[in-house]
């Protein structure tokens, strides 16, 4: 029994090692980090975190990231819910091809779109806004959302829709007061994935922003180059970057298992 549990424990320790290292570094001074090998911080310091929470360049980075990620999640869901409904309930000319084509959008490297997007958003005056990044991330997030939601929606029998129409519900009323609540688990799972993908995407976010909408990851690289190697500060910023994802995962952990069971996630 003991020996059997040893293997997963070792494995988890192995997986957690880089994260532990990051967390440990965030409480060390830069001198200690560069000075030599230490498993625990010799001198505990909260200075790194203090800098982040007091310097506007730092905390605005977080705020910017969260803003465009949230905006993107909302836009993607708003567009994907009706689209997924259409794919799950109706058959129309080319529906299967269109559905597959949506998926292929996820297969293109994001770098391909960086240059045209930069040009396009500059031309229409959206450069360096939350909306620019949020819209750019729709490129891969809407197909993903349609794909996941369609799986959940197809699990709801069509008879539910028909019963509601016979009961007198108009389509918009049925969709918002019956259908959406019925698949709220699916929407939760979808929102989680949208949030995560947008949160970790860097290339487009960096390309389409300069000052006002600069994401936290971009702040991290720029600060590093201007102020030498502030390793402790970067580590603290890294820790704070992981936290939102961890919080979201905590809330949707049960739904995710359901999503996996449906085979679409």
């Amino acid at each position: 029994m003991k020996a059997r549990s040893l293997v997963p424990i070792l494995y988890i320790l192995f997986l957690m090692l880089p994260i532990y290292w990051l967390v440990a570094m965030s409480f060390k001074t830069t001198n200690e980090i560069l000075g030599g090998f230490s498993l625990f911080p010799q001198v505990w310091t909260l200075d790194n975190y203090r800098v982040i929470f007091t310097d506007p360049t730092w905390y605005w980075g977080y705020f910017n990231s969260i803003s465009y990620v949230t905006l993107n999640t909302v836009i993607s869901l708003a567009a994907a819910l009706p689209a997924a409904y259409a794919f799950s309930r109706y058959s129309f000319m080319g529906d299967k091809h269109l559905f597959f084509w949506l998926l292929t959008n996820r297969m293109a490297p994001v770098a391909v779109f960086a240059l045209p997007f930069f040009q396009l958003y500059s031309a229409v005056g959206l450069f360096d806004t939350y909306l620019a990044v949020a819209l750019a991330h729709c490129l891969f997030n809407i197909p993903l959302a349609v794909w996941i939601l369609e799986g959940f929606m197809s699990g709801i029998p069509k008879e539910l829709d028909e019963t509601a129409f016979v009961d007198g519900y108009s389509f918009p009323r049925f969709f918002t007061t019956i259908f959406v609540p019925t698949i709220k688990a699916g929407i939760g799972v979808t929102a989680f994935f949208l949030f995560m993908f947008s949160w970790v995407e860097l290339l487009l976010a960096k390309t389409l922003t300069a000052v006002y909408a600069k994401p936290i990851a971009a702040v991290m690289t720029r600060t590093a180059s201007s102020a030498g190697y502030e390793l402790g500060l970067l580590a603290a910023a890294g820790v704070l970057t992981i936290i939102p994802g961890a919080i979201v995962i905590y809330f949707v952990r049960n739904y995710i298992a359901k999503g996996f069971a449906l085979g679409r996630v």
Partner: protein
Amino acid sequence: MTLELTDLSLRVGADMHIYPTTLRLEVGSFNILLGATGAGKSTLIRLMAGLERPTRGSIRVDGQDVTGRSPQKRNISLVHQFFVNYPHMTVFENIASPLKVSGVPTSEIAGRVEAAADILQLRPMLHRRPQELSGGQQQRTALARAIVKESTAIFLDEPLANLDYKLREELREQLPELLAGRGTVIVYATSEPTEALLLGGNTALMYEGRVTQFGSTAEIYRAPADLHSAQVFSDPPINIAPVEKRGDRMHLGTALDWPVEGEAAGLSDGEYVVGIRPHHVTPVAPAAAAVPITGTVRITELSGSESVAHFSIADRVWVSQSPGVTQFFVGQTHEFHMVPAECFYFARDGQLAARGSAHG
């Protein structure tokens, strides 16, 4: 209030799903659509409910054409075979939902919901969610939602098919009573002839997208219009065989012949198809005049209250159904008795030619 279908048909691609159908369903009537799976019962209900657009023909309510009207504007109720309720609402909210959408004042809703809940014995479950209920209670919730509003028509699409035996019997007994006197047209689809007979009312027999016969349930059971109707309305399946009338006797191949009686005596000589329901082919000689048949037993089914035997005669397999327990031995011959007066004779085009009895 009447619900009239005139030449209503539905074609999808090259397939006729519903052949032109004309029916007139009266208010307060209990109408059964009886047919095998795939006969078009659900499709016909979907057409009447407005969930499907007909290719041709019209639907009239009280003479008013509603063919193009959406289901929302038809003021109807529908109960599916699967228990369909709104999962995120309580039973109370589920039953109240049709009233709420049609703008019934809140003060009135609670009373009407409770009244419907009382009829269907749902009072103690009003504050639970559908998924916390048993299948029977879930379907009763769907039924309550169907009766709570004053609809023009209530469509029930095999509402009892997914319930277990005991619940099905219980609910089947209550159904005609709780649906009666509502001033609505009731349409009830089922695939079980026994259920149709128990429910009474009118029956429309359906076979491969056609309504083959419509009339009072008891009447069309006694006098099927054609071979398909007879087949649809018999469980176990009706025994059929080609026969030839020569003079005053019917010949089933060389194996069997019997004297023709009743209406059938007036038939001209020639080829027909005989149909006789399994309970008129019995192992014990009945009181009525009967013809002995010797057949080889193939399969037997004993249910305690009745015995069913499948036996081969000539090159066909016939079924005998009789009350009580009769011991059959598979592979051995057994003597059965057929009542010629209960035979139906169909012409070669399938239409009923004559009955073995005199009339009625």
